[in-house]
């Protein structure tokens, strides 16, 4: 009897535990829940976390993500309006705003992702096809900066944009937003993650980049040669300047000195020109007559007249 009583208590406890676990459930901070009873949604979706009660056995807990979810676009090869083929890789953030609707329309996250694929990939394709490539690449008409000596060649005019990347993503987002309105989800953000040329186009772009660089290189070489020639010319000019100025100044100095010397001589010799002539004659005689000179001396000369007289 006592043993049976114990057993009864055990069974009661077990039953109590089972009922308790069946009627209590935990909603995580990251989750929201829709309760269904035999498939029929019961009450409002539960979006607050904590320990919750439900009717045991018959109520099913359907948990949904409350956090922002990632949607990752396929890498698509798309043509732009100017017929350039590019790869576009996109991503979006979305979340479940109405779990009940979400549950009814999409069932689960995988279903939602596939709907988002349809909507966002389609909208991306439409938008890209409506604009020129530059509108996707650039966000603003910001001026490019570069070193003064590395200024881009002006041959290729950089196109200005009228819309820009931001505008295009907004456009995709807005259109997609209206199409997911009744799915119980909300797209919060959409972005172009990667853009790239498809391979064939890339090769062309590379070829263009190479020729652009070659042009810049040629420009540098020409600039170098030009500047070198200019410096060389300047060198010749300066050299001539220096040399001619030196010559001029030297001549002036010498001329002045010659003039001064002439004045000095004149001042001295003018005091007695006759005596000067005499002195200079003596000097000239001494300097011009040498051993090869034949001298005819008349005895009536100043010196030899004594010779004659003695004879």
């Amino acid at each position, binding site marked *: 009897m006592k043993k049976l009583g114990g057993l009864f208590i055990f069974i009661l406890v077990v039953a109590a535990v089972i009922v308790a676990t069946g009627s209590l459930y935990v909603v995580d901070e990251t989750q929201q829940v829709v309760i269904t009873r035999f498939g029929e949604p019961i009450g409002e979706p539960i979006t607050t976390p904590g*320990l919750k009660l439900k009717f045991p056995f018959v109520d099913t807990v359907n948990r949904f993500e409350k*956090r922002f979810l990632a949607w990752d676009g396929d890498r698509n090869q798309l043509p732009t309006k100017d017929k350039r083929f590019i790869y576009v890789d996109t991503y979006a953030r979305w979340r479940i705003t109405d779990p009940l609707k979400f549950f009814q329309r999409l069932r689960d996250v995988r279903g939602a992702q596939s709907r988002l694929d349809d909507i966002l990939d389609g909208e991306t394709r439409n938008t890209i096809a409506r604009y020129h490539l530059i509108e996707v690449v650039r966000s603003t008409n910001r001026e490019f900066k570069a070193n003064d000596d590395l200024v881009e060649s002006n041959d290729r005019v950089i196109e200005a944009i009228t819309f820009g990347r931001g505008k295009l993503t907004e456009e995709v987002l807005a259109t997609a937003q209206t199409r997911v309105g009744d799915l119980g989800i909300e797209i919060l953000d959409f972005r172009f993650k990667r853009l790239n040329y498809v391979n064939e186009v890339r*090769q062309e772009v590379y070829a263009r980049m190479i020729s652009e660089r070659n042009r810049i290189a040629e420009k540098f070489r020409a600039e170098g040669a030009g500047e070198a020639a200019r410096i060389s010319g300047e060198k010749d000019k300066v050299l001539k300047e220096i040399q001619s100025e030196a010559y001029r100044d030297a001549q002036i100095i010498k001329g002045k000195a010659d003039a001064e010397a002439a004045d000095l001589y004149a001042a001295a010799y003018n005091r007695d020109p006759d*005596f000067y002539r005499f002195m200079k004659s*003596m000097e000239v005689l001494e300097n011009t007559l040498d051993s090869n000179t034949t001298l005819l001396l008349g005895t009536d000369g100043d010196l030899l007249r004594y010779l004659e007289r003695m004879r």
Partner: protein
Amino acid sequence: MSDPNIRGVPRPPNFKPPQFSPRWILTAALGIVVLVMVFSMGHSIQPEELGVVTTFGSYSRTIEPGFRVTWPAPIQKVQKVPVQRQLKQEFGFRTVRADTRSQFDSRSFAEESLMLTGDLNVAEVSWITQYRIDDPFKYLFKVDRVSHTFRDMNEAIMRAVIGDRSVTEVLTVGRQEIASEVEVRLQELCDSYETGIKVDQIVLQDVTPPDEVKPSFNEVNQAQQEKERLINEARSEFNRIIPRARGEAQQVLQEAEGYATNRVNRAKGDAALFNELLSAYKRAPDVTRRRIYLEAMQDIYPTIKTKVVIDADLKGLLPLLNLGGETKP
């Protein structure tokens, strides 16, 4: 929890476990459960971490580093978030280390690093983003797959920023500006996505032209070097010639000065000599004149080899003389 014990015990009536009564087993099982619960109450939070406590899934508080006590396991849970640790993501390359936090898809890295520039050229940009978890609540509960999201954000922002710059700017002067702009815009996006991430720094790694185009970029560098070389050579030629010419000009001027000084001094000397002589001459003109003449003759006569003395009265001698015969001018 202890169901198998309870259910298993009464079924075989003949089987009597020698020592363990059902009550004992139940007590033991309960004891183990309680022990596990007690152990799950203590948490040691490391210095770089914060603990986020949830009560039945609902956030209740954040606990600081140290030993902390919470309610046992099914009631409260603690998630540790390393808020002080600096985390990083690499783009366009991977550090080969096994212990990186995130496992990445097997994407090719060129995919990550190739991007279009504003002049529709292509550049390869690789970078590191250093970040911390600033708000563990948001980090844990607001965004699904935060790390994946964060990578997407990085790539989108970097491409938007690069897309507004020319390839030359990206490769040369723009680096610092790009890094700081990406940093600012990425932080804004992190805040708007409620990731709880604080971006510490964007560190640009290799920023290069694509491999196919590299040689021509190098050629530009070479041309730039060549330009500088040519200019330097011309300058050095200039510097070799001009200072020397200046020195030589100085030399010419100095020589002229020397000539001038020489000339003037000599003139002065000659004039002085003449003046002195003249004053002496003036004192006794006749004698001095004669003396000077005779002295000159004294100097001159001995040097002359051929001397012919002719009487003053003798005429018509000239035809006899063989003038120019022995003498050479």
